[in-house]
């Protein structure tokens, strides 16, 4: 079995050359949409309309790059709470995202039962997420195990933060997937913080990817602010998984552009200098520059795209706000499935 750690994962140029311009623009649109929705959620939070927000800001390239390497409607995802951009690519609509934010009855994620950002949609093969971190990692291995038992060729993709890799479920899940060469991709989105705890107090290795070889699988560290680099690394992991060669551990190095959540104030543990420098790693600005440089998107086209996205976010917000709240009597529904 090939085991390697790639410090220099393939870069933008490799994948950018291969993907059609329409796909590149669509990737960009997804990133911008995720950001715009996310920013709107914070505004709604500060306006007292949404009790809780947790962001994907800074993680967009890692998520969009990875999700574009998956096949919608076929592959299964288990995205953690920062996975807004992931679920948008997999087919969730902005309105559905907003329905969850406002805890509306028609929210497809949970009907307003869970906090926002606990994604789920059976139709989209997005497996329901809980709050205890890392529990989805054994699930991902199990979805892969079932796929192997059934002889199917779907790939399973799950995401989590670097702090979560300290959980036992990280070890147990990856180990099982490695033992049986299951078609699972484990994406760690390393933003260097678990709420306030920095990476060096979480682990003694430099990169989460260093752990791959310990499980007998490839561990790949990639610049997670480079959407095309993540796409390329994930595309290879998908191929490997579909071939039956087993799982891959991918560390996407990202930045957390916001506080941990709307209940956190990161100025209490991040210096002003650091907060400034993370801004310089904004994955959306980076991809916009790439697209302009390669004449794949003009400034005017970008303005138009952003205006369209803003209108979409407005419409989603308004529709979701109008949607009804769950009826109190529905509290008792769905404790057990009926046969």
């Amino acid at each position, binding site marked *: 079995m090939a085991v390697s750690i790639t410090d220099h994962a393939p870069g933008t140029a490799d994948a950018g050359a291969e993907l059609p311009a329409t796909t590149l623009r669509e990737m960009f649109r997804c990133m911008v949409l995720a950001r715009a929705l996310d920013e709107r959620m914070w505004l709604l939070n500060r306006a007292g309309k949404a009790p809780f927000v947790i962001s994907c800001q800074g993680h967009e390239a890692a998520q969009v790059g990875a999700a574009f390497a998956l096949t919608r409607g076929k592959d299964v995802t288990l995205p953690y709470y920062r996975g807004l951009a992931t679920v948008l690519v997999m087919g969730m609509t902005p309105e559905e995202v907003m329905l969850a934010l406002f805890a509306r009855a028609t929210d497809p994620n949970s009907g307003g039962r869970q906090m926002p950002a606990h994604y789920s949609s059976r139709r989209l093969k997005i497996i*329901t997420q809980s709050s205890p971190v890392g*529990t989805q990692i*054994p699930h991902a291995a199990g979805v892969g195990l*079932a796929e192997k*038992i059934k002889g199917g060729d779907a790939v399973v993709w799950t995401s989590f933060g670097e702090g979560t890799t300290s959980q*036992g479920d990280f070890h147990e899940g990856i*180990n099982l997937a490695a033992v049986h060469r299951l078609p699972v991709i484990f994406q760690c989105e390393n933003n260097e913080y678990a709420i306030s705890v920095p990476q060096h107090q979480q682990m003694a290795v430099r990169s989460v990817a260093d752990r791959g070889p310990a499980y007998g699988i490839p561990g790949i560290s990639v610049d997670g602010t480079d959407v095309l680099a993540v796409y390329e690394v994930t595309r290879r992991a998908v191929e490997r998984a579909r071939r039956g060669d087993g799982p891959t551990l991918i560390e996407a190095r990202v930045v957390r552009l916001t506080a941990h959540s709307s209940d956190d104030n990161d100025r209490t543990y991040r210096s002003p200098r650091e907060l400034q420098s993370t801004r310089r790693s904004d994955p959306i600005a980076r991809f916009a520059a790439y697209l302009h440089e390669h004449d794949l998107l003009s400034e005017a086209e970008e303005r138009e795209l952003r205006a369209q996205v803003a209108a979409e976010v407005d419409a989603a917000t308004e529709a979701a706000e109008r949607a009804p709240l769950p009826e109190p009597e529905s509290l008792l*529904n*769905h404790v*057990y499935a009926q046969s």
Partner: protein
Amino acid sequence: MPEINLLEAIRQAIDEMMAQDERIFVFGEDVGRRGGVFRVTEGLIDKYGPMRIIDSPLAESVIVGACVGAAMNDTRPIAEIQFADFIAPAFNQIVQEAARIHYRSNGDWTVPMVIRAPWGGGIHGALYHSQSIEATFAHVPGLKVVAPATPYDAKGLLKSAIEDPNPVLFLEHKKTYRLIKGQVPEHDYRVPIGPADIKRPGEDLSVFAYGLMLHYCLEAAQALAAEGVSVEVVDLRTLRPLDVATIIGSVRRTSKALIVHEDNLTGGFGGEVAALIAEHAFEQLDAPVLRIGGPDVPAMPFAKPLEDAFMPSPQKIAAAMRRLAAY
């Protein structure tokens, strides 16, 4: 009808269900070549191969967690926890995940899986091979908890559990595995999850039990019959959902109630049954509701005198029955 023991009944249920439904697989420690430490899955790997009778890594959280994921990908997993005492690392996956997924997804996802766990004491298993775990898990909505006492019930209930669209914790009392034999029909049948079963009808007092204690209660009831006391013995069989109607119906007839389990008394399942009786049969009661349970020590010790002192016995149960009858 052939007579088989409880362990064989469980194996037959797994075997017959696996032969019919290729989505079913078994996942647990040593379940493959070894056939499980108790030999429940003996021979099944030869029939169904290593992709359906799978030796898991020694890691309980992923035994349950992977089955949760597999259940959501159109398979029907049967997880085996080698001893119920080792279920604690999987607590999070059972309680926070398996039991909540249907509810938290507003009915979108279901987790049809069985978690088999050998439990109970009286087998020189000491602190970590004797535990009762039913009260902890019966507290959890979204989970079903089954604890059969006879081969007939074990086979029929396990088949129902495998077909159930919900996660079912299936508790197999270790001491009953080979000790308890009974007639099991050759035709395909089910015992539904939910209903209790009156294993011995009686008039003077009602006794509620499950697992090994059911048999100790039947033995004690036999002794009391010789003394002219007619004891009704109710096998709860399913702890969640609990058959409240049968419990209350029995107490309304006999006016006296005793609940017996091995688990520690405080916070044990008997407390729930006693509360239901107090709530729904207060007017009919002629005596205080009695409970027998293990003492409130952390777990069952190894040395025989200590183990005996912990375990409820037919003698201790008979003594409580006499007290109640005389009240």
